[in-house]
């Protein structure tokens, strides 16, 4: 039984979902991506190592802090995954609660899968840094072996902490699902945190690109502080010292006992929680005060718009994906465009600007359009979100084209508002010109509509997984339009270059949008009727 449960967990892993050639391609592409990622890690770490090598004793402390940070990030990243694994499926709860399984069986079956994923994460991050660290320092080969075993223990520790944190996380999620306003506030706070973190990382990256010195960062007091805290970052510090010195006496407790102790405590506490979870009743109502029935009369269009907003804000995936991206978009676009402008304005890359003066225009426009694509392609979720309720859409006495337009309008309006804020930020800080601003409003609006039509169309054709049209309109089309605009202004270089550049892009975008609309109007009924959503 346990073996079958473990197997089931592995079968739900994305790598194992596909079959035949698709599985081979999936595995090979994952390996290639992982190899690329590892190479990048080695390169970055070697660069950093060499850069900070000038500061005495900093490399050891930096290594410990780095592994500790990765461990913390890994745990934080794995708490939602653990929550999803244990508590996300109501049908699984129903099935498991009727099977002769103990809560430890459930933890074991899911825990093995989680442990494997976490171990892969550790081996592809912390171990790679460890091996690079050992190689640069010409450490003994025993370091590589012992550090590998340390990764096994570290994974136990991380899983144990994730088991402990998943309980408050699950309760918190339940609370958020009850109070949408609270979840919205939390989401904004989280986004702000992410955007600020992103800007800091981007700034650090720009400093590296501009070849700035790290003296400001590594002052004497900072180095002292780093060396001080590195000693106390258990169990990473003891694991590192043990791998290096094999000194059992001092580091045994930190390296072995702490991970296993935390894992045991985590498992025991999660077991108690899971026991309660799988035995609780399925329908739990909150006893709200009963109001006398009032009917909010509205027209057909408003009713459909309200429904779309409901779908767009639909809890877990809605608030934490599409809407959050929409909110983050202006800040992200501003950060990236201003950073790119800064890179080309100062430092080593300044000469590019003298060779190709229009590079600003090309890069800024392309970046803005690509950001728009990434954010808006997610809005195509709206048809997929209908799932079996698509049958309701099909039976409503409202034309399919009208329903399609309303489905199109809600994400398009939301995206446009977000896009406009981004542009206002850029023009206010003089990152783009006024002509650029006004032309980009028109280009962006038509692009948003085209993107949303394409993704809805692809959704209706049921080809979401093989969506060449979406990839084309989202990524290839902006490159082509901006490319055509750029090539044109290379040949027509006068005071109207900027206007010509944008006019060409706008013309192509509008032509494409109109052709999409005409095409969809013709085919909408057939597309709706053919689209099954689910097998009813």
């Amino acid at each position, binding site marked *: 039984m346990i073996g079958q449960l473990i197997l089931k967990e592995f079968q739900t892993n994305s790598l194992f979902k596909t079959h035949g050639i698709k599985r081979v391609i999936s595995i090979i592409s994952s390996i290639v991506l992982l190899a690329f990622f590892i190479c990048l890690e080695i390169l970055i770490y070697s660069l950093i190592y060499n850069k900070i090598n000038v500061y005495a004793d900093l490399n050891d402390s930096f290594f410990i802090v780095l592994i500790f940070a990765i461990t913390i990030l890994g745990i934080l990243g794995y708490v939602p995954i653990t929550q999803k694994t244990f508590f996300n499926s109501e049908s699984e709860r129903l099935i498991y609660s009727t099977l002769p399984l103990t809560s430890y069986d459930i933890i074991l079956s899911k825990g093995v899968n989680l442990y494997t994923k976490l171990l892969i994460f550790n081996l592809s991050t912390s171990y790679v840094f460890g091996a690079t660290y050992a190689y640069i320092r010409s450490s003994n080969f025993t370091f590589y072996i012992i550090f590998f075993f340390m990764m096994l223990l570290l994974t136990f520790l991380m899983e144990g902490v994730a088991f402990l944190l998943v309980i408050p996380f699950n309760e918190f999620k339940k609370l958020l699902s009850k109070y949408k306003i609270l979840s919205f506030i939390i989401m904004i706070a989280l986004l702000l945190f992410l955007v600020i973190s992103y800007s800091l990382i981007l700034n650090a990256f720009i400093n590296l690109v501009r070849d700035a010195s790290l003296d400001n960062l590594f002052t004497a007091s900072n180095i002292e502080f780093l060396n001080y805290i590195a000693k106390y970052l258990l169990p990473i510090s003891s694991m590192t010292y043990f791998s290096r010195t094999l000194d059992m006496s001092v580091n045994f407790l930190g390296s072995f006992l702490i991970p296993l102790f935390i894992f045991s405590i985590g498992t025991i506490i999660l077991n108690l929680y899971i026991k309660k979870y799988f035995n609780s009743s399925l329908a739990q109502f909150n006893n709200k005060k009963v109001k006398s029935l009032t*009917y*909010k009369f*509205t*027209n057909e269009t408003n009713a459909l718009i309200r*429904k779309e907003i409901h779908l767009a804000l639909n809890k877990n995936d809605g608030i934490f994906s599409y809407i959050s991206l929409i909110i983050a978009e202006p800040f992200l676009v501003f950060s990236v465009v201003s950073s790119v402008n800064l890179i080309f304005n100062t430092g080593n890359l300044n000469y590019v600007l003298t060779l190709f003066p229009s590079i600003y225009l090309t890069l800024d426009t392309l970046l803005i359009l690509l950001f728009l694509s990434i954010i808006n392609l997610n809005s195509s979720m709206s048809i997929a979100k209908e799932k079996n309720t698509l*049958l309701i859409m099909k039976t409503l*006495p409202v034309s399919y084209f009208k329903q399609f337009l309303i489905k199109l309008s809600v994400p398009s309006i939301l995206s446009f508002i977000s896009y406009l804020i981004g542009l206002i930020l850029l023009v206010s800080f003089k990152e783009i010109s006024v002509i650029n601003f006004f032309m980009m409003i028109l280009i962006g609006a038509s692009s948003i509509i085209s993107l949303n039509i394409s993704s809805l169309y692809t959704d209706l054709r049921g080809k979401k997984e093989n969506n060449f049209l979406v990839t084309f309109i989202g990524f290839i089309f902006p490159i082509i339009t901006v490319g055509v605009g750029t090539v044109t202004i290379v040949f027509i270089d006068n005071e109207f270059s900027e206007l010509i550049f944008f006019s060409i892009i706008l013309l192509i975008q509008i032509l494409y949008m109109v052709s999409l609309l005409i095409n969809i109007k013709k085919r909408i009924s*057939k597309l709706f009727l*053919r689209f099954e959503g689910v097998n009813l």
Partner: protein
Amino acid sequence: MDNIKSMIKITSLNKSYGKKQVLFDINLDVHEGELFGFIGKNGVGKSTTIECILGSKLFESGEILINDLDIKKEPIKVKSIIGYSPSEPICYEDMKGVEYLEFISSIYHISPQKFMQNLNFLLKALDLKEEDLYKEIRSYSHGMKQKLCLIASLIHNPRIWILDEPTVGLDAMSTFELTKIMKDYVKLGGTCFVASHNIDLIAKICDRVAIIKDGKIFNVFDLKKEPSLRNKISAIFIKLYNEK
């Protein structure tokens, strides 16, 4: 016979899923004010026939007239006079019950007075509590969702009421109440088309019954004219399905 109005008239309906044909030359005539039963085993084409009637599925050939309107030519007009309750309760689960009913009523342009009148009657008849409507639909039990879908299908006073396996998930009392509503509905002049594999229920309440097997209509029995057939439908059904 001439004064009997046809509310659902299906002529030579053929429907395939890819290369597999699932409906073969279906002919049906459902009259105004009758309770029409449609029985067959699972997977023989009941739901597909219904979805063709509703205009939510394409079909290769044939004609479906609803109140003399062609479903292919005037789908909006047809849909506005139909109320449909699917075999599995389907509704927007993130909405509250009341929000879903408001949504449906707004689409069908119901006046607030009519809405309240219908809702109060249906809540009482189906034993659904008013406070349940203020809870998210996802927290409902299967039976409660089924009741909500039944209410949504009737809230706009449709002229034709189509029910696909309406008793699945309902308790005995609710099933009893539902049959009563169906009878009252046709008494008031509505036309009810009910597909089910609950032969006994269909035989008990319907005026006429069609049996479908392997995508073909086997026969249509007039139980109003020949009440003795009510007790024989089960046997006929079993005999038909035992034939190879």
